[in-house]
């Protein structure tokens, strides 16, 4: 039986897993990068990131002190039966997860202006870091899948959502997306990155598709377009932590949504940091 309590507990554990563990595809990608990296300093950075992942997983420590803003994607099966208050239970699970991991207490106090100016200080409670608006999607079946993603601040400084005149060529669009990302690599600091790219009809939709790309992508399963974007960014030779070397991007996660009759595509590009996408999924059912 799916209850509020079960949802809350599952989401709490899911958030902690997202913030403290590397997925298998991340471990494979880093091992591969270390093996191929010839630059001693670049290899040192990659090895430290793997050592960090090992300690984080063993001791349930946050991978990064910027534990990020929780983003939640929910896929609800058409035949799923959810208890009343299920969305509140998800929000409550997020609060509990942030307190237990613990998340960084970075929620800003005050009214709108005070929050912008950060003039009234911060809440001490990590649970005050509210999640971004939830994305809910309908899927077939009777299960409910909840994915928690934690989005750090560094990539938000370097991300961009803007229009591209496509000239009826996906290469034109992806070359532009890669050039945006490449121009930001030097200042990102937290390389190697994973590029999340969403292509849609509106800014909101492109950003949402970019988030879905972060949710679904795998570093061990890359299509030819994703490999192309990754290659263009790696050609910058910025390398891990900007120190040079062959690994500036570990991969690209691309998601293309429905598109409109127009000469323009709206493209959202987020250079995710070396630990991202930090994500975990829990699947719940009434069984």
């Amino acid at each position: 039986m799916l209850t509020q309590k079960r949802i809350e507990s599952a989401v709490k554990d899911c958030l902690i897993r997202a913030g403290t563990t590397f997925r298998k595809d991340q471990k494979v990608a880093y091992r591969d990068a270390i093996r191929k990296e010839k630059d001693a300093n670049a290899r040192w950075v990659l090895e430290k990131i793997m050592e960090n992942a090992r300690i984080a997983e063993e001791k349930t420590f946050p991978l990064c002190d910027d534990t990020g803003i929780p983003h939640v994607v929910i896929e609800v099966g058409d035949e799923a039966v959810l208890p009343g208050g299920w969305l509140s239970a998800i929000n409550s699970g997020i609060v509990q997860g942030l307190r237990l991991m613990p998340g960084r207490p970075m929620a800003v106090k005050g009214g709108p202006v005070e929050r912008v100016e950060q003039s009234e200080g911060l809440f001490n409670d990590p649970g005050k870091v509210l999640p971004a608006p939830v994305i809910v999607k309908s899927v077939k079946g009777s299960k409910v899948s909840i994915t928690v993603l934690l989005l750090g601040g560094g990539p938000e400084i370097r991300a961009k959502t803007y229009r591209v005149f496509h000239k009826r060529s996906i290469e034109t669009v992806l070359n532009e997306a890669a050039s945006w990302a490449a121009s930001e690599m030097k200042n990102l600091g937290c390389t190697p990155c994973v590029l999340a790219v969403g292509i849609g009809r509106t800014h909101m939709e492109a950003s949402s598709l970019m988030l879905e790309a972060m949710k679904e992508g795998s570093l061990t399963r890359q299509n030819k377009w994703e490999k192309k974007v990754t290659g263009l960014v790696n050609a910058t030779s910025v390398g891990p932590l900007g120190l040079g070397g062959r690994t500036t991007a570990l991969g690209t996660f691309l998601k293309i949504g429905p598109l409109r009759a127009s000469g323009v595509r709206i493209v959202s590009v987020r250079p995710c940091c070396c630990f991202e996408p930090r994500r975990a999924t829990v699947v719940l059912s009434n069984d």
Partner: protein
Amino acid sequence: MKRERGGKKIIKVKTPIDEAEFRRLKIGDQIEIEGSIYCGRDAVLPQLVKLIESQNLDQMKLNLKGAVIFHTAVSPAGIGPTTSNKVEIEGSIPALSEAGVKIHLGKGALSQKTIDELKRHNSVFAVTPPVTALFSDKIVSQRVAAFKKEGMEALYEVKVKGFPAIIAIAHGKSIFVTSKKR
């Protein structure tokens, strides 16, 4: 001095850093810091600069001579470098260097102007990956040193052992420029 597995020699750096020890640091050096370091970022570093400029630093009982300043917040989640080329952080580097800070520790490339200022004031910039879990293993103790009201963005004094970093900018040279040329 120890050797990283299959890599370079690791240089041990003790704080406060003396002039002789400082002079041998060059870009690309892998170091491990031992001793007390200050931790602060956007909110607190400009305030520290104001105190220096108004000659009121003595009130705070801080010792910046030979110090390391790590660009990070300190929270229950741990510590990790924030981007050092943010205006409030990079802008604080010249005055803090002049006041005696020897190593500014963070991440990201800095401008040519800051490279020149670091050289002028005999200071270096080092970078470290945001490996918070690993850092948590290297922290011996921590205390708020100043600006307590800033919460996790207050200035902290953190005692560390074997804290890893790479010298990125020193004596007018930047690893970010040389790596681009490679």
